[in-house]
């Protein structure tokens, strides 16, 4: 099997189906300081798959709405534009990536872990009073590099899986051994290409090595959210390992173990909500 380099994988990102124009336009519009509910609703409705998933998630217990909402403008009004923005970004990217065909890769497990991490990241952001939208989206996409590798370099991805099983090591160690680079670099390259906010790019790039980051960055949150998701068994399974928790990041977050356990309980209670990602 021939060797691949990070550059080859990054160059290959052009082969990914482009984010549809309607989604670009919507995400771009949502970056504006002032947005209009009618305009947002119109832009969502242009993509039927996105619109359907958006309504399904909004009506799950995820947002704890008191009544069923049937139309997109209703969802936007009830949730508020700020919360809806998180949902739109996440749903848009997931909807898009689920069109990728990845034979022999457990996509269900992948998405459950991603959605679980997004839930944990959101709970952390709420606790810390930071931007919940970016935390949620970064949590959802933190491992996206793995899916890209599996989709475009399936043989290499299988070698990584085999190495991991043989050595019972952390997946990122297997990637570094087999490839010489890892999923965080691929994911960050994609997030950059798709012009995600800089803090999301950095969080994807550094969620396994937060040590050198400044305090208060999204990196620490995604680092801990990833750990929490494994602890809560998103997706679970006998092979799973809790990633290494950095004491530097942990101390910077200043959460403490009592609060940490409460947050685990909060996310545990919403765990069925992670299923939206599969619907």
């Amino acid at each position, binding site marked *: 099997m021939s060797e691949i380099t990070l550059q080859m994988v990054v160059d290959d990102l052009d082969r990914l189906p482009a984010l549809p124009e309607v989604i670009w336009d919507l995400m771009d519009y949502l970056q504006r300081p002032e947005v209009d509910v009618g305009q947002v609703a119109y832009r969502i409705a242009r993509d039927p798959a996105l619109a359907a998933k958006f309504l399904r998630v909004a009506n799950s217990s995820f947002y704890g709405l008191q009544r069923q909402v049937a139309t997109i403008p209703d969802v936007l009004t009830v949730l508020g534009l700020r919360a809806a923005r998180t949902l739109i970004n996440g749903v848009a990217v997931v909807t898009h990536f689920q069109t990728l065909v990845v034979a022999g890769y457990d996509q269900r497990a992948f998405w459950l872990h991603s959605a679980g991490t997004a839930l944990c990241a959101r709970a952390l952001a709420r606790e810390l009073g930071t931007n919940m939208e970016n935390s949620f989206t970064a949590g959802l996409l933190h491992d996206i590099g793995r899916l890209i590798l599996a989709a475009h370099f399936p043989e290499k991805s299988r070698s990584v899986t085999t190495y991991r099983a043989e050595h019972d090591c952390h997946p990122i160690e297997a990637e570094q051994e087999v490839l010489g680079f890892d999923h965080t670099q691929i994911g960050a390259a994609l997030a950059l290409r798709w012009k995600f906010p800089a803090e999301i790019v950095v969080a994807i790039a550094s969620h396994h090595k937060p040590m050198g980051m400044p305090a208060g960055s999204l990196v620490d949150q995604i680092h801990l959210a990833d*750990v929490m998701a494994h602890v809560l*068994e998103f997706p679970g399974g006998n092979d799973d*390992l809790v990633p290494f*928790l950095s*004491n530097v990041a942990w101390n910077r977050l200043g959460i403490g173990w009592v609060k940490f*356990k409460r947050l685990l*309980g909060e996310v545990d209670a919403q765990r069925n909500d992670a299923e939206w990602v599969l619907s």
Partner: protein
Amino acid sequence: MIQIIPLDQTLPGMVLGEVLMSGSNMLLPLGTVINTSHIESLRHCGVSEIAVLSPSERTIAEVDEQREALRGQVERLFRRAGSNITMKALRRAVLEYQLEKLK
């Protein structure tokens, strides 16, 4: 804890909390898991109420088993964690969380 309940409220699967006697005859020994034919024959013997173990005691063994399973699950998740202090504290917090949830 032992509860005295009327025979009509006895359900299959309940566990007898004391020896069931009729005069000097033992009808059923302590710890019998009641089934429908027991209930039927007790009715024939004119038994109107019996002593059963309350559910919480019946499941002590199950709870112990679950606790062990949780410990095993946490150990498995942390099998590569080494002796790092933060990871040890994390493992402790996770185990506490799981055991508290069981209560």
